[in-house]
């Protein structure tokens, strides 16, 4: 899929990272991006409040089964290459993880489709949001899984190259070339 951009929103709704892999057609300045991030954060919170009654009554067991994201091989990392385990930062290859994982975002905004693009949101347990915008209008569940696999990898890269940067102050914009290049690597491998 063609990735348009990746955004990271901190737990208070501020945009801390934005990178466009394809330049958008319209004119957008950095302020506009901040507003988009803030709006997304609010819409996410509103969505959690507007849960259909049927889902609220639904038992927890069914929800748990739904909230598992299957692992999809070869997303952003080339697992085919031979020559023993490779190192991906502090992670030992061939891949960052190789089993299905829990989705922490159970009732918030997860996926949005328009005629021109689709957007995926992955939220960590600490409240950090990773947003992926793709130029295709994906509607299938597989695309959500693919996006969430990719975003968890971005989270892994974030935990390595942003969290372990002694010059990074928490909740501030990310200005790290290493992080930038590792994310680009993930996207290029897609």
């Amino acid at each position, binding site marked *: 899929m063609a990735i348009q951009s990746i955004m990271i929103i901190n*737990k208070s709704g501020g945009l801390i990272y934005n990178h466009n892999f394809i330049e958008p057609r319209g004119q957008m300045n950095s302020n506009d991006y901040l507003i988009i991030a803030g709006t997304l954060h609010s819409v*996410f*919170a509103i*969505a*959690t409040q507007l849960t259909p009654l049927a889902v609220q009554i639904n038992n*927890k*067991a069914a*929800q*748990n089964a739904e909230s598992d994201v299957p692992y999809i091989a070869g997303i952003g990392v080339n697992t085919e290459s031979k020559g023993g385990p490779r*190192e991906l*930062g*502090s*992670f*030992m290859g061939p891949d*960052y*993880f*190789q*089993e*299905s*994982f*829990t989705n*922490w*975002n*159970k*009732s*918030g*905004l997860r996926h949005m489709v328009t005629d021109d693009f689709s957007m995926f949101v992955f*939220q*960590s*347990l*600490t*409240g*950090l949001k990773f947003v992926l915008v793709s130029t295709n209008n994906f509607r299938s569940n597989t695309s959500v899984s693919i996006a969430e696999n990719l975003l*968890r990898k971005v*989270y*892994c890269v*974030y*935990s*390595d190259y942003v*969290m*372990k940067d002694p010059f990074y102050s*928490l909740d501030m914009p990310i200005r790290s070339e290493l992080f930038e290049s590792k994310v680009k690597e993930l996207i290029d491998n897609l």
Partner: protein
Amino acid sequence: MSTNTGTSNTSTSGAAPSLSSYKTIKQIGESVWKNRTVKINAELFTLTYGSIVSQLCQDYQRDFTKVNDRLFSMGYNIGIRLIEDFLARSALPRCDNFVTTSEVISKCAFKIFLNITPHVTNWSTSKNSFSLIFDENPLSDFVELPMDASKELWYSNILCGVLKGALEMVQLDCEVYFVSDVLRGNPQTELKVKLNKILKDEMPAGED
């Protein structure tokens, strides 16, 4: 690495079904440590920590209360960042009770980062405080406390800070402190974790 349904499900009765459905917490911790984490020589780590503590003792003119505080706050700053690494690596669901939290800490977190599994004991009746007993402590290998420090210094106090910081980031406000340390002549190293309250207001939206 297949889904190994819990044959040796040691998790206590209150453990979340979501957590133990695929693998036990112990299996998750071991597989992440074994297959997903890059290892270094533990002695390098031990000696680096040792040089930090000895430098701090020198800088604070052997005022060990200050050294304890400093180590704690250094740990806190590590913890609030390290939690992201832990979650990205393990992708564990939120713990729905403190018993599960204690197991995740001992069997996953300590396993992944320090390759040890401290015992969890001394539960309070209300299940909101527990002790971690360290049979081995990689921080304090090769260490002998000097006479003047043996009453005041908690050598591994950085661990308290790390736990406090990391738990705070998952909305658990805890008090963490050492009760005893073999370095001080006690029979065992014991670290107490006490839950003050769950910060419900700061819980990120989107979870149930």
